């Protein structure tokens, strides 16, 4: 059974002292809470990682994460809390790859890996994203890593920015807790 989520309006006068309270009023409040809560997914991790000029000319060095090896290289390792209430997480990245070169950026979250492929020459303003279900990643405090690898060509790719965050939950997918 899914929980009801409604984008409604709650009047403060409904619950003024002396006013009658109906069971439906309480359900409205719960549905409003569920609506807001389902649409506030957490941003789990992320940041910029480019070399100098990664944003626009003269933008400062922000980590300088480059990829020029045909062997997979781990560039970030961290742990993040994936709440069991989440349904899916999304990994998004932006990369600068020269023509003739292809790199992959793989983000592992718990038991699942989201891989994005950047074929050069990339349009550096384009964000590439992929999702993984929390049923696959697992929940709780999970080990995460980001691995880059060159899969074609001989150029040097640069990871410019990346983000890992939860996705909002649609009304029909909002699962009720076990006690309801």
């Amino acid at each position: 059974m899914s929980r009801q989520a409604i984008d409604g309006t709650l009047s403060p006068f409904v619950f003024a002292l002396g006013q009658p309270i109906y069971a439906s009023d309480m359900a409205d409040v719960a549905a409003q809470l569920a609506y807001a809560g389902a649409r506030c997914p957490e941003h789990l991790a992320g940041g910029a990682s480019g070399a100098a000029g990664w944003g626009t000319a003269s933008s400062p060095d922000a980590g300088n994460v480059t990829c020029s090896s045909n062997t997979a290289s781990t560039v970030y390792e961290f742990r993040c809390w994936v709440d069991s209430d989440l349904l899916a997480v999304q990994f998004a990245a932006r990369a600068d790859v020269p023509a003739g070169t292809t790199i992959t950026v793989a983000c592992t979250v718990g038991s699942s890996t989201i891989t994005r492929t950047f074929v050069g020459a990339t349009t550096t303003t384009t964000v590439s994203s992929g999702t993984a279900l929390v049923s696959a990643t697992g929940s709780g405090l999970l080990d995460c890593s980001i691995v880059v690898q060159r899969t074609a060509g001989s150029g040097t790719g640069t990871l410019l920015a990346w983000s890992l965050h939860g996705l909002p939950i649609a009304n029909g997918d909002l699962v009720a807790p076990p006690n309801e």
Partner: protein
Amino acid sequence: MSDGLIYQAATYLQPLLAQPDAPAVADLGAQALRAAYFHQQHQATLIGTQTYPLRMRVGRVPSFLSSSSYQRIAEWCSVHLAPHHARVEVEAWLAVPFVVRTRIYLRIVVDDGVTTHTSTATELVPDHGDPEGASAGRGLVRVSNVLTLPATNLPTSAAQVRVEAYAVLDGTATAAPMAMAAISAWRVGP
């Protein structure tokens, strides 16, 4: 009512709601309403914090950004923004030499996929020779900014939030040296 009581109210409402014919009392209703308001007004969810690698070694100068146009210093891609997210707030910690007056310009840019929204802020860092009370001699400077989000084009899960900055020697068009330390951004409810 304390925050703890509000949370408690939200917790023990759930089993009761499972029974449509259950009696409700005004106090319970009021607590539920307060819980709803509390929930919506405290949607300060972190977009992220970016910390720059410590590159200010001895004998090494900080970054020089452009002296006239904003340069990107932080970015979070594919950010989810809901209709009840009223604004995006940013706080940046920057290191500047305090031997000269430095004027820092900080800008928040939110691209919701259709429209780009911006908000700018300015911070003047006085030099150490300024009169007493001028907050002189600061090496690490906190600069904050708030961008009010319009309701149009929301919700979206593909917004890009960027922080951009430049710094000049005050009263000139000469680029001032500065180093980024840490930058955080939040989504905030009504």
